[in-house]
């Protein structure tokens, strides 16, 4: 496919911005169109076409059709409040936004591929879980938290779209928690705290993904479309205690019943938003995913292992 034309939603967030930069620099990509209601970094805005629009706006379908994009990267998926993304709007952005985007895609004759930045949080964190979730395990446990239900719904919508449009390669990349310098993810915020609150008596197996590898996997999925969900995670699943020792972060074990209230109070005092429930469960029960599909079908190899990624994130946040 010569001269790819790529649409990226949520292009103002760090994933979208970095992906847009890298795709704009790629010889195989003719045009990058970014959609976001928030201001886009001026340097990036010069290199790509920015549509300052909400996915719900009436003129967007015509604009997208005019751009004749062949690939849509749905990156506007939020796990917790960000500037310009208040808590009450998260469900609307994740689910209604996806619905609107897919409605636009319905009438887009030039479309060949959809790449969704999903999350491995869809599997949840469960004590009786498989040690390595495969892509088929998404419906094994009930969707317990708000974000889990959002991405469950979102994947259902994408799956239904894929069935209606067999010519379009639809994939959902299920990323393990992303860590990295300027990436605002739950695990990062915890790494940045003076002490990392852990759950007393629990030492779960955790697995993360370096921010660069997250962007790299998205880019790979744009340039070489695959079908269906694909787990994306760094090599290595390590116990939380070992991960924190390696990242030289002090842990503060808190008994499970007190964890929620204490951490909530501390975060409010520090002016930080409350942690979503799936993070609390992740720190108690952890999660590992099987990355066979990432290697064999997406043919992507992350550059950094779980331990390296955590060390890099910790280095970038000296405290």
């Amino acid at each position, binding site marked *: 496919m010569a001269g790819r034309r790529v649409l990226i939603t949520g292009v103002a967030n760090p994933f979208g911005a970095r992906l847009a930069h890298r795709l704009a620099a790629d010889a195989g990509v003719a045009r990058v169109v970014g959609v976001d209601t928030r201001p886009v970094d001026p340097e990036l805005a010069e290199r790509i076409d920015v549509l300052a629009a909400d996915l719900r706006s009436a003129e967007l379908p015509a604009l997208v059709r005019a751009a004749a994009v062949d690939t849509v990267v749905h990156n506007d998926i939020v796990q917790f409040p960000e500037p310009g993304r208040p808590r009450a709007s998260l469900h609307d952005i994740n689910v209604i936004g996806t619905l609107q985007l897919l409605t636009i895609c319905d009438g887009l004759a030039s479309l060949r591929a959809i790449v969704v930045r999903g999350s491995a949080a869809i599997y949840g964190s469960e*004590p009786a879980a*498989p*040690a390595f979730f*495969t892509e088929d395990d998404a419906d094994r446990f009930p969707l317990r938290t708000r974000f889990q239900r959002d991405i469950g719904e979102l994947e259902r919508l994408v799956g239904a779209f894929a069935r209606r449009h067999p010519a379009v390669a639809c994939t959902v990349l299920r990323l393990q928690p992303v860590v990295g310098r300027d990436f605002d993810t739950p695990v990062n915020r915890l790494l940045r705290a003076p002490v990392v609150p852990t759950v007393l*008596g629990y030492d779960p*197996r955790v697995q993360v993904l370096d921010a660069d590898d997250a962007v790299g996997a998205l880019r790979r999925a744009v340039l070489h479309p695959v079908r269906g969900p694909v787990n994306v995670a760094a090599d290595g699943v390590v*116990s939380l205690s070992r991960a924190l020792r390696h990242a030289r972060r002090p842990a503060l074990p808190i008994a499970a019943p007190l964890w929620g209230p204490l951490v909530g109070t501390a975060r409010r005092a520090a002016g930080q938003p409350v942690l979503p429930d799936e993070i609390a469960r992740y720190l108690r*029960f952890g999660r590992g995913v099987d990355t066979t599909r990432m290697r064999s079908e997406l043919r992507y190899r992350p550059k950094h292992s779980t331990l390296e990624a955590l060390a890099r994130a910790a280095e970038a946040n000296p405290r």
Partner: protein
Amino acid sequence: MTEDDWGFDPAFARTLAPLLDALYTRWWRIRADGVEQVPATGPALIVANQAGGQPWDAAMVATALRRHDVRRDDPPRFMAPDGAFELPWASTAVRRLGGVPAAPGNAARLLAEGHVVMTFPEGGRGTGPGYARRYRLERLGHGGFVELALRSGAPIVPCALVAGGPGAVDRVLARVARLPRPPVPLPVLPAPARWRIAFGEPLHVAHHGPDAAEDRALVLELVDDVRARLQEKVYDSLVNRKGAL
């Protein structure tokens, strides 16, 4: 070597070794027969009955193999009972000793990686029967372990355990306190009766092929076969043990 991707931590297992050895030699005075039946390389599925209650059964079978230098570099992994990973500390200890949640997929993956996997298909029932039935095996689940062996091609090594009153301490405590029996065995030490561990000849099922796992008749037949082998070994061990104390 530090922990692997499963969270198994050989250093932790080594730290606990003296304690487990003391239980093995002094408390339960265990004798293990037929350890050589466990293949020296490649995957194998050890199928054992529950006799002393978890986690002691799994720990003592693993200790028996270690003391006989079988698979020293790759100790057996075991399917932990449901609920073990919900408990504080216990969950961490079980994981570091090589336990994995008994979720489908875990055992298959371990076998595919060439590990020895221990499973106790009687499940929670194993420690529950009345005193008179304490050496009678319960139903071995619904044959999931046979399907697993067929799919992976790993041999099934029956492992018969004879211990003192299965779960007796739990039951006495429960009766005295008039409480229901705890769903997870309490980590109390079972009585210092003599134990016997007897490994039987491996049952090779690979020649049936992985598709045979769908064949219910064959699966049930193999389950009965394994149960019969285990029961026979249990009775043999009882005779050889010459008294519980």
